[in-house]
């Protein structure tokens, strides 16, 4: 059962040095606030998993907390490179970054296998690509019925998955809607699950495209309105494309980046102190 608790305490309890952590959200509902709390607490030596390492992972990588990245597309969507990611891979700054690199189809199926508690998933993928030469989590299996050789990808089972959602009820049942990405799979594949939400409501109203995660698959729910910014939460906010564009020059330069991180993340006082309490955020 999920406890509804402060972001500080939930992150401190559930995210640990050396963990494999998935913070998912396909452009939509990216859990920035939780990632910033990880940075503030300096939780380090992380293996980060994410199909599309977005600016959120650029920040964690630049903060020096990441040992390894498991991913399939690492860019700033529509803008360009993730400069902190590139700097870590190309120059080892602030520390070397190991990569486990896949295609989207492969990563999606790795989460599916993880959620299904299978050791691997099968797809018709990677054929003719050099990708399998760079990873030990792609292999092959032969169909016992047709003899066809297919790609096998190893399951992903993060130690902890962190997602942002629109709503939880008082029991900690969660609903998200809009682009649902791989959040359900990432959550069900994980050993521990932390969900930040826009608000607590008395009752989760079924919605078109709604994905419900019951409280008994979640460890902690934290009320963090705007916790996906500069990503967005459909029905609550729109994507801050200007921030994504502004990120490019910030991240290009190590000093500019570090100053940004000190000012906008590390220097932010405990957000729970300033945050409205549960009651105030109930609609």
């Amino acid at each position: 059962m999920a406890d509804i608790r402060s972001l500080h305490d939930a992150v401190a309890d559930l995210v640990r040095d050396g963990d494999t952590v998935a913070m998912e959200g396909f452009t939509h509902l990216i859990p920035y606030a939780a990632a910033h709390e990880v940075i503030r607490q300096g939780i380090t030596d992380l293996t980060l998993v994410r199909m599309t390492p977005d600016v959120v992972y650029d920040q964690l990588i630049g903060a020096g907390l990441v040992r390894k990245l498991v991913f399939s597309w690492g860019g700033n969507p529509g803008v360009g490179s993730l400069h902190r990611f590139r700097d870590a891979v190309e120059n080892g700054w602030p520390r070397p970054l190991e990569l486990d690199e896949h295609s989207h189809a492969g990563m999606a199926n790795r989460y599916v296998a993880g959620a299904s508690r299978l050791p691997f998933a099968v797809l018709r993928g990677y054929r003719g690509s050099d990708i399998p030469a760079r990873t030990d989590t792609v292999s092959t299996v032969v169909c016992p019925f047709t003899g066809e050789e297919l790609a096998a990808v190893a399951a992903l089972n993060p130690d902890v998955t962190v997602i942002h959602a629109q709503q939880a009820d008082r029991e900690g049942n969660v609903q998200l809607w809009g682009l649902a990405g791989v959040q359900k799979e990432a959550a069900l594949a994980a050993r521990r699950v932390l969900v930040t939400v826009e608000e607590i409501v008395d009752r989760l109203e079924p919605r078109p495209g709604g994905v419900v995660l019951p409280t008994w698959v979640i460890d902690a729910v934290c009320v963090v309105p705007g916790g996906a910014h500069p990503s967005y939460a459909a029905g609550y906010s729109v994507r801050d494309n200007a921030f994504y564009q502004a990120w490019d020059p910030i991240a290009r330069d190590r000093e500019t980046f570090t100053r940004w991180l000190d000012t906008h993340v590390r220097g932010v006082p405990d957000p729970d102190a300033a945050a409205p309490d549960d009651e105030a955020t109930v609609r």
Partner: protein
Amino acid sequence: MTDHDDPHNNPTFTSDELMEVNAARALAGATTCFVGIGLPSTAANLARATVNPDLVLIYESGTIGSKPTRLPLSIGDGELAETADAVVSVPEMFNYWLQGGRIDVGFLGAAQVDRYANVNTTAVDRGPGRPEGRLPGAGGAPEIAANCGRVLLVLRHSRRNFVERLDFVTTLGHGSGPADRARLGLPGAGPAAVITDLGVLRPDPATAELVLTALHPGATVERVRDATGWDVTVSDALGTTAPPTPQELAALRALKAAGKDD
């Protein structure tokens, strides 16, 4: 062509616009298109505004039948979901819809392409003693190129992009010849055209090697040769693409202007 001013004589369009308009035209007749972000998304949305109003746009973020009114910055912009006929999970998108063989055209960009339309979006060799230059990675491309009925590539023409030898094969086009896709069991027909800011290249049916089949208005074979990292073959029947119509240009510019609102 219309009875408006002939754009040949009034070439008030850019080479990027030539690329985008021709990329959109390549979608005439298609039912469904799996759309990469950036140039492919521009082309696919322009196609909906011009040659193919009923084209079903499919984005890897899980949207089927998106009808955005402006160019999305990312594949996950809210409008893609709000205007879609259906929104599915990312695993479902890749398994049931893409691998399921439901999509006619895969429209992709590329960082490097070789003479067989193989694509690198992973890493580039920056020479001895220098670390490999990092690109974004595969994304959906390997399986888009494998499973869609056919593939269109759109990218700017330069020696940096059109290379003799890829530093890394992220996504197979035609491998090293016309038999490779069948040998590997790839369901789709592979790259049908590479559309650049200079012209259009298509694979020779006999060799699968890209051949320059059309130049855009104003472009020359010499400029294509200069911008291609291999000794590019030019078709005996080399044509010239029709210049953008005023309607095409108006639609393209309206899309781009709308995209800058936010």
